[in-house]
């Protein structure tokens, strides 16, 4: 095992990896930007290195700074987390060249899988089913129009270098194509530094099913079953669950075999995910994510296997001692991604200070946190604040537990999607397991939390709170002064005779 590992990421995934290292007795080095001085990952790591300004290009995406930090601190390996440099083959190669272990697949695998076009060709050769599409190098609007006609509308365009929904657009008719393509290319350029696009047949009611893979340096490859990630907004996942209600044992086995075949075809190393679209009984390879994923936790809870620790073990050269038949699914797990965003305003990211964060704790409730109460939510990074993961004996139990947990998940100061997630989980169609990737568009378009007037109880609560804590605002709307925090009135309880306090 390594002596010391540098974690080239921030937020909950950096925290997750640091904890895995600590459990294995590995020293950790965190890197951070000047916006993250107080961040949990910095507090948790044994050492930390300031690597630059808040803009990702100046810090978390700056390969030179990260590699020299690793060298300065004698870290033997770098864990890239997800996002940032995790799927950048240049970075993986530079680590190799500098004698630092990149905790993930080999650079050429990342490169191959990052090129969605080459990835599909490879999969076709390995007899993994793929979706019809245009993956050519010619990037003109005319060519896209021509190819779209061949494939048949609707089509979807995606960034060749991308992921996470950035640069993705559905096009339903030829008239929409030119503007969507232009805007996608700009988004792709900003997010990945590369505006190359590809286009595919758009499946109308597909489910997003993905298989977790682990592979060691001897080529021993297993899958750890599926995750269903069909609940998405703006093509980004918000609710994930394992197992999927859509898979029969036969289909699960068939897809699992295909996933292993896909990984073996590229001599995959370490943890990865093979994503499929499932439409009826037909499944199609979408892409392979060459990293640990956001939603890895639900696989961990249902298989009992610690993926972050296996990543470290495999990278340090240990053999994967798990056999396919050793891995079983048990019970049901759901993850909700808690985002700083406003579901009433098209899921726009929200920023500000998280004044209050109170978490529901209980049996089989897991929190992967990258933020603490009182911290600033900045516009520089992905707006995901944390992940809430629950486990239940069956799907119903897991859904009920999640509804309970969300009902007690207090985030005040920054708008979050908690209330929205709760309604998704409570939706009768979700309860029945009738989900597909359009679920949110179909049932939650123009969703509003305040359907009616505000309940009077809420006004009563605000009124009593202010009665207990605050003097009258000064004329002209100046800031109110907080009263004595030790005032006995704060412990009001049943009131006895006394004076009004203003």
């Amino acid at each position, binding site marked *: 095992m390594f002596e010391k590992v540098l974690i080239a990421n921030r937020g909950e995934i950096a925290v997750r990896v640091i904890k895995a290292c600590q459990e294995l007795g590995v020293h950790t080095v965190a890197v951070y930007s000047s916006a993250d001085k107080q961040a949990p990952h910095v507090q948790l790591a044994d050492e930390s290195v300031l690597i630059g300004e808040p803009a990702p290009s100046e810090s978390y995406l700056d390969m030179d700074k990260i590699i020299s930090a690793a060298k300065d601190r004698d870290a033997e390996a770098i864990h890239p987390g997800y996002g940032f440099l995790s799927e950048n083959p240049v970075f993986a190669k530079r680590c190799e060249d500098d004698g630092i272990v990149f905790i993930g697949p080999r650079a050429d695998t990342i490169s191959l899988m990052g090129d969605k076009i080459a990835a599909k060709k490879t999969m076709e050769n390995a007899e993994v089913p793929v979706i019809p599409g245009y993956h050519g190098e010619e990037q003109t609007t005319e060519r896209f129009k021509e190819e779209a006609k061949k494939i048949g509308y609707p089509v979807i365009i995606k960034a060749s270098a991308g992921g996470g929904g950035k640069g993705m657009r559905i096009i339903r008719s030829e008239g929409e194509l030119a503007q969507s393509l232009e805007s996608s290319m700009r*988004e792709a350029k*900003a997010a990945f530094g590369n505006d190359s696009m590809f286009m595919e047949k758009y499946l109308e009611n597909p489910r997003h099913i993905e298989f977790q893979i682990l592979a060691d340096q001897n080529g021993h490859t297993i899958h750890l079953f599926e995750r269903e990630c069909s609940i998405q907004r703006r093509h980004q996942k918000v609710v994930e669950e394992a197992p999927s209600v859509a898979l029969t044992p036969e289909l699960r086995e068939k897809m699992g075999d295909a996933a292993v075949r896909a990984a073996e075809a590229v001599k995959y190393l370490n943890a990865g995910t093979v994503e499929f679209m499932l439409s009826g009984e037909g499944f199609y390879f979408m892409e392979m994510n060459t990293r640990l994923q956001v939603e890895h936790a639900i696989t961990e809870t249902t298989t009992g296997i610690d993926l972050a620790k296996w990543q470290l073990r495999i990278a340090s050269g240990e053999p994967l001692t798990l056999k396919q038949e050793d891995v079983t699914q048990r019970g049901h797990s759901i993850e909700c991604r808690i985002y700083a965003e406003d579901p009433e305003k098209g899921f726009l*990211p929200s920023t500000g200070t998280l004044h*209050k964060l109170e978490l529901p704790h209980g049996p089989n409730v897991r929190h992967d946190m990258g933020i603490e109460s009182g911290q600033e939510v900045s516009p520089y990074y992905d707006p995901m604040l944390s992940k809430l993961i629950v486990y239940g004996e069956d799907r119903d139990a897991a859904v009920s537990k999640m509804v309970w947990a969300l009902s007690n998940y207090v*985030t005040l100061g920054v708008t979050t999607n*908690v209330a929205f997630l709760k309604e998704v989980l409570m939706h009768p169609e979700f309860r029945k397991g009738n989900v597909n990737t359009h679920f949110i568009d179909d049932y939650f378009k123009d969703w509003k939390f305040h359907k009616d007037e505000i309940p*009077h109880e809420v006004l009563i609560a605000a009124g009593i*709170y202010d009665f207990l804590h605050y003097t009258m605002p000064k004329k002209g709307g100046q800031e*109110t002064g907080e009263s004595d925090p030790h005032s006995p009135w704060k412990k009001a309880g049943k009131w006895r005779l*006394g004076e009004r306090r203003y």
Partner: protein
Amino acid sequence: MDMNFRHGDSIYNVQVNKAEAGFTVKIDDKEYAVDANELRPGLLQISTGDGIHKFVVSVNKDERHVFLKGGVFKLERLASLDQADIHETEGDLNSPITGKVVAVKAKDGQELEKGQTIIILEAMKMEYKIDAPCDGTVKKLHFKEGDPVEMGELLLDFEERTEGEE
């Protein structure tokens, strides 16, 4: 104690008075007998006769955020009813996000039709389009490509075209 809270477009008058047991709370014309406990700072247990609810309250200047069963209600404490007038909305051409201007699609003086894109903003790698809210003229753009922009900042002056001008 007499308070006014704004929620969305509505303003509510809330009067809280200590009663012999608990409080009386009057909201507009409706009166409630309330029993309340602050179980720990910010956590209120409130019983109105209809049932017992727990609320978590956080305060930032005039903002009051009240959490109830997974939902958050955002209120604003107003100094007086007069103050409400100050906050009349200015139109929709304020930036809805804190981020960066990635493209400016119109020029000063340009006439636009409703729905035409004027400015494209970006935050956290997601694009957000600002479209003309109605037919009209761009009077003055306050931002250019690459400028950072704060939530709520006025992006441009825009004048609605009235039918007489056509």
